[in-house]
């Protein structure tokens, strides 16, 4: 028999998470849902891709997360001329004791939290240098593999406009991100608060609210969240429905070229655990899955060109999938309420 989290453990996890959320919300005003998704992604130990217009606070949010978690933080500004060695590091010739030797010099990837700012502006060569780091949590240079510090998060941002001179991330790269979150704009009230509470828009300097031990404890609690088989089956059916097969929803058949991978299902399961803990539950519920479905699935769908031209977006397709796939595999008869 599986032992679920105790009530005090759930309360403790929620307290830690609320601390992080509160700190983020102090930095980024009026973006509670965005902050929650970021916290969920971090608790699930996944990488996060933030997409939004300039000036919405993406970079500030990532910087705040890094500092709030008390982890080492590096920022890399991705440009077209950025080379893989610029982020991974490389051997440099050093003279030690009268002898010259190549010594590996760590790049900016060797941090707990790496901000890949405007990641789509670097060349595919440099983008692909992130693949191993994101998946294996290691960097291989000149045949030598160098493990990255744990935990390791890549928080990337990209601009959906100004596509000239950019290199859209390949599907394999996108698949490594747990979430792709679109940063929404803020309303006038939030902007008024920003203007009145912040001098030159600078947020208050965040301080670390979690220690390394607390972060490990938080990760342990997330791993202990119970995922019922019925909910796992729901995740599997959702992911399977994104493939344009005969049994898929009509929107998927018409607009999707390739569906989500099993890695998407794994990501959804992990994210749902974190979402359940954030909601104060010792087990995953269907609502947790639905909450993380859009940010976890949308960037993994490859749409048909005609559908994109027709205005379909991956987010709307995911919404259609959520509408079409019932939470319970066997529904009650239609006449029963």
């Amino acid at each position, binding site marked *: *028999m*599986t*032992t*679920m*989290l*105790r*009530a005090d453990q759930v309360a403790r996890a929620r307290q830690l998470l609320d601390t992080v959320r509160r700190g983020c919300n102090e930095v980024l005003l009026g973006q509670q849902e965005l902050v929650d998704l970021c916290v969920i992604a971090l608790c699930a130990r996944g990488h996060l891709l933030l997409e939004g217009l300039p000036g919405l606070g993406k970079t500030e949010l990532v910087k705040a997360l890094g500092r709030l978690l008390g982890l080492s933080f590096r920022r890399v500004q991705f440009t077209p001329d950025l080379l893989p060695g610029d982020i991974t590091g490389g051997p440099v010739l050093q003279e030690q004791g009268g002898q010259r030797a190549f010594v590996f010099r760590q790049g900016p990837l060797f941090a707990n939290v790496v901000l890949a700012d405007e990641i789509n502006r670097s060349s595919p060569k440099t983008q692909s240098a992130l693949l191993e780091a994101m998946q294996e949590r290691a960097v291989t240079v000149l045949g030598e593999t160098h493990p990255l510090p744990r935990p390791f998060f890549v928080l990337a941002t990209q601009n959906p406009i100004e596509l000239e001179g950019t290199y859209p991330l390949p599907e394999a790269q996108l698949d490594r991100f747990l979430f792709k979150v679109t940063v929404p704009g803020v309303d006038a009230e939030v902007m008024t608060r920003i203007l009145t509470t912040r001098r030159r828009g600078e947020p208050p300097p965040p301080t670390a609210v979690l220690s390394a031990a607390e972060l490990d404890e938080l990760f342990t609690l997330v791993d202990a969240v*119970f995922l*019922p*088989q*019925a*909910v796992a089956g729901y995740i599997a059916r959702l992911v399977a429905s994104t493939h344009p097969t005969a049994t898929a929803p009509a929107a998927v058949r018409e607009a999707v070229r390739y569906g989500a991978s099993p890695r998407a299902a794994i990501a959804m399961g992990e994210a749902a655990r974190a979402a*359940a803990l954030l*909601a104060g*539950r*010792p*087990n*995953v*519920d*269907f*609502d947790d899955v639905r909450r993380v479905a859009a940010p976890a699935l949308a960037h993994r769908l490859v749409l048909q060109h005609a559908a994109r031209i027709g205005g379909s977006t991956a987010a709307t397709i995911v919404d259609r999938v959520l509408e079409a796939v019932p*939470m*319970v*595999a*066997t529904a*009650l*008869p*239609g*006449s*029963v*309420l």
Partner: protein
Amino acid sequence: MPAKHAAIDQFRRRLVALVFVDGLLRALLALGVLAVVVVLVGRGFGLPIVPAWNWLWATPLAVVFAAAQALRLPLSAAALAVHLDRRLGLHGLLLAQHEGAELDPAFAQRLDTALAGITQALPSLQWRRILWRPCVVLLLVGAVAALPALDVPVPPPPVAATAALQQLEQQLQELVGQGTLPPEVKEELQQRLQELAAQVATGDADVWRELDDAGRRLARERDAARPPAPAGDGGAAAAAASAAADLLRQVPVADLARAAELLQRSGAWSELQQAAQRQLAAAAGVDGTFDASKLPVDAARLAELARAIADSGLLADAARLAGALSPEQVAELTRMAQGFARAVGAFDRGRELLQRLGGGRGAGQGGDGKNASAGAGAPFGADGPGSIAGSGAARGPGAAALAMTADTDGVAAAPLELPATELRPDDWFASDVRRDAPDVAPQPNQAAGGAGVAGSGGASWQLQVMPRHRGVVRRFFDGARGEAGDKR
């Protein structure tokens, strides 16, 4: 049983019941639509199909369908747990426990609290979605019932039956014209003829039997209403015969059997006349009782039998009988003896009356069947002076010689009460009872010319070939033989 299992079972029971009701309404809708379609299609083909109450025998089909729907409800316990979890707003707590997870006491208490209010979460029928089905059925059936009756062309009545009916009506009018028909009989006959007219109009196949029955009934009424024959001719004899027949019916046959039984029980049986003993012994049963239906049906013999018992003097010797019979039985025997005496007296008076009226013609004329005296002699049977000359043997009251040249008048047409009988005569007996198959010797079905058919080749010559073809057939086979011989 843990609370969660009980809750899931309760949820399942409610769900099965609701599915049954839903399936029943669906099936009734289908049956109603089918009935309406049948009625409408029947009207389209000119068949006057009308909904009837016996169509409700199809409702067990609806029940069977609903039961099948409910029994094959594809919901496992896990699926039910998921539904119940969501209905109770437990956010997976019930689901986790159902899958074997051990809940913290705080969460378990929350789960138990929620399960206590399960009645609020049990499913119910969406009556707005399903009520249209019985409404549609009622509307359709009502609309069909309100349709005007189908104008079915009625086939013309058969000419012969119509003529026979008209003849019966004419006979009834004649009877009514005589004025002797009782009003109730008249009304009954008129009603009967009206019913027959309706049957003839609809072309009923059995109308001829009804017509024959009505004809016989009219004939009986006509005979009953026939005026008495004039005195001096056969009319007085007929009246006397009728009176005698009535007197004969006063002979209590059942009392005869009962008296014989009591006499036998009292031990005075041997003192009866030998002829009476033989006749009574023929009706004796193995249990000491006497079957009245096996006593002679001849009135004269019955009268003689009654006379033999009444005149035996045994009934008057009550003191002697009291030793063997109870006082009630003695009293019964005495009462029956008085009845026998009255019946014998009535019989004798009837015979004298007949002798005075018809005795001039003497024996042999009473039963010639050509006049009214024929029936007069019949009741008095073989022993009477007016016995039937033609037959020479009494055939019971009402028996008369039938002349095939004209209608028979008098008592011949009176109702004849036949004695009770059995389907199998007494002198028949079962010779053998066997359970094995009968031993039969099957004979081959061998027709004429069969030997030729069994042969080869030559059987063709046994066929019936038209004369003008025989030459062709013969040349064909001869040519075939010739060609075969040439090739060889």
